[in-house]
């Protein structure tokens, strides 16, 4: 089943399918390249396993475990990461 990273509940885990680049922004090309590159540089590449640990209240960021380290990722960014979740 495919879900956005932002929709995963604490304790759930999945594998990254793809990262959606932004399309409706006026700095589109630059933005999408930088955005995607940045996530990938932090280790969020397609095929990577991610576990959601907790999320901050009021639609705050999400804490994830990835590649043996702990990251906080803003919800806006998490929305653009498509995940495959095993059910």
């Amino acid at each position, binding site marked *: 089943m495919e879900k956005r990273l932002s929709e995963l509940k604490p304790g759930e885990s999945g594998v990254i399918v793809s990262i959606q680049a932004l399309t409706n922004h006026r700095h589109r090309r630059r933005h999408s390249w*930088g955005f995607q590159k940045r996530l990938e*540089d932090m280790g969020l590449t397609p095929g990577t396993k991610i576990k959601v640990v907790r999320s901050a209240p009021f639609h*705050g960021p999400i804490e994830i475990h990835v590649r043996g*380290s702990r990251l906080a*990722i803003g919800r*806006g960014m998490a929305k653009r990461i498509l995940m495959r979740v095993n059910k």
Partner: protein
Amino acid sequence: MKKDKIMVALAGNANVGKSVIFNHLTGLHQHIGNWPGKTVEKAEGTLHFKGHTIDIIDLPGIYSLSTFSIEELISREYIAVENPDLVINVVDASVLERNLFFTLQLRELEAPMVVALNQMDMAKKKGIKIDHKKLEKILGAPVVPTVATSRKGIYELMQASVDTVEKGIEKTAGTKYGEEIEARIRELSKMVSRLQLPYPARWVAIKLLEGDEQIEGRIRQLDPHILFATKKLAKEIEKIHGHSCSTVITSERYEIAGRIAREVQQIVPSTKLPMRERLHALTTHKILGYPIMATVILSLFFAIFSFGDYTSQLLSVLFEHFHSIYESLFGTEILATIIWGGIIEGLIAGITIALPYLIPFYLVLYFLEDSGYLSRIAFLMDNLMHKIGLHGKAFIPAMLGYGCNVPACLGCRIMETERERFLATFVVTLVPCAATSVIIFGLVGAYVGFQWALLLYVIDLIIIFVLGRLAFNMLPGEPTGLIMEMHDYKTPHLETIVKETWFRLQEFIKMAFPLIIAGSFMIKLIEVLGLLKPIAYVLNPITVVWLGLPAITGITLIFGVLRKELTLLMLLTLFKAEFGATDFANVPGFGPKEMIVFALVTMLYIPCISTIAALVKEQGWKRALFITFFEIAFAIFVGGIAYRLLTLTGM
């Protein structure tokens, strides 16, 4: 080969103990400045080791060598172009995979390298065992296990570094990607190697395939045909893998890092939840996290400001005594007055305002950052800060602004991109500092009503929100969301924190004091030359006609540039001289309406001279002047509107 002067660069991820190693190595022989034309800090130092003079440069903590942030760009330009004799890659042994990703990129840059496998104690606590000899073999570079906080392995690290430089190591082989990628890298490298570039050809080829804009730009000038070839080759890779070429390369690089990590480490996780994990869960808890944060921040701020306030007053009293001694020695002639009022008082302003707050502030900031709590605060506050176009990390400087804008401006350093740094700096200068609060409560709160004072704070918050949003939309560049590592909690290394505070303080004094002194000298000169009244007269259209304030407020607003609380003190002095008033209760022409407008204008109109100095230091002259003049114009604009609205309501 014996070299008398060796250039070494320290490189690595953020929070891996790089600055601890830097401080151990350089001791008190260091110099903190900025990279030319950039808002990024540059720390340099010198070490004498076995007859060698070693110049060490501490590169910013980064995760990659792409062009996402200025730090990354600076680091890779430094390594590739300045060609240091050696790069010491500081690696966090407890998060090996992520750190090796960076190591692999350093290897691609073909920099001669020694790896410091740091935080071995931390790794051990997490049940991670690392075979460093095996890692050495795989990486083809010396690996030295270290525990920087207790100086373990530092000597061996330097020994290995000197040995490596003297032996003159052969350039290490880069990362091996899949054959379908390697073939295309080879093809591109061949084309690139004909060009005159300071970078290794293979690295340029990889960066081209990754779509690196900076490298693309350089190649476009030299040989645009290579870009066409790159496009074609990248398309082929995309076809094979079904992802963009940049994604494929980053992915593979991480795969290799992961493979190496698995090969050299053994993990036996402990069964019981360790203390630092429990602390992490507690401080990021969705309910408990907030009261904990509020308590920590408020008590730290309370500590900063009670220390600052106490010391500041103590120093003021001291200097007042000094003043009477000065007057009895040199009299009150014009020259003596100018020297005292202009130069010495400027110096005093700097010492009594900036320093008492800056010292505890730096200590606290580095403590929060080093321990790891800063990232938890950012985690909790991210959403709120997004409302003004910033993310969680900006919360700390914004809060600091309520105490003093100077450390707040300096604290904006923790933001990642130049754009965010400017945005955050702009926002914090709008936050009413302690001195402004004195005016708001001492004038509006005391004579108009407490609710009006609170209203001013609310208005200020709205202004911050609106201007922050506007600036967010207008500034060029890409807005960024939050993505950060939350490294494990650790006990901060006190010696490093104290040293970092000391060197930053030195830098601030060097930068800000001349400006503060020059500013107060100018104002004193204006006063002594009898130009205050004429200037107040010239300002009449603004103060009297547009803002509806008494003419003499023009004078006090000029003095407010030195320190904001002076506006209130000066105003009382002037009213006393003119009307014999001992407080603000019954001054003709200065009723509740005028008080509110006056407080509003003072709150917004200009960062004080110390803040301007901090702005210049962090953002450069152009942006500092832009913020200053914008805020003057904006304060006058808002003040006039407020005056008319208040008149309409019949106040």
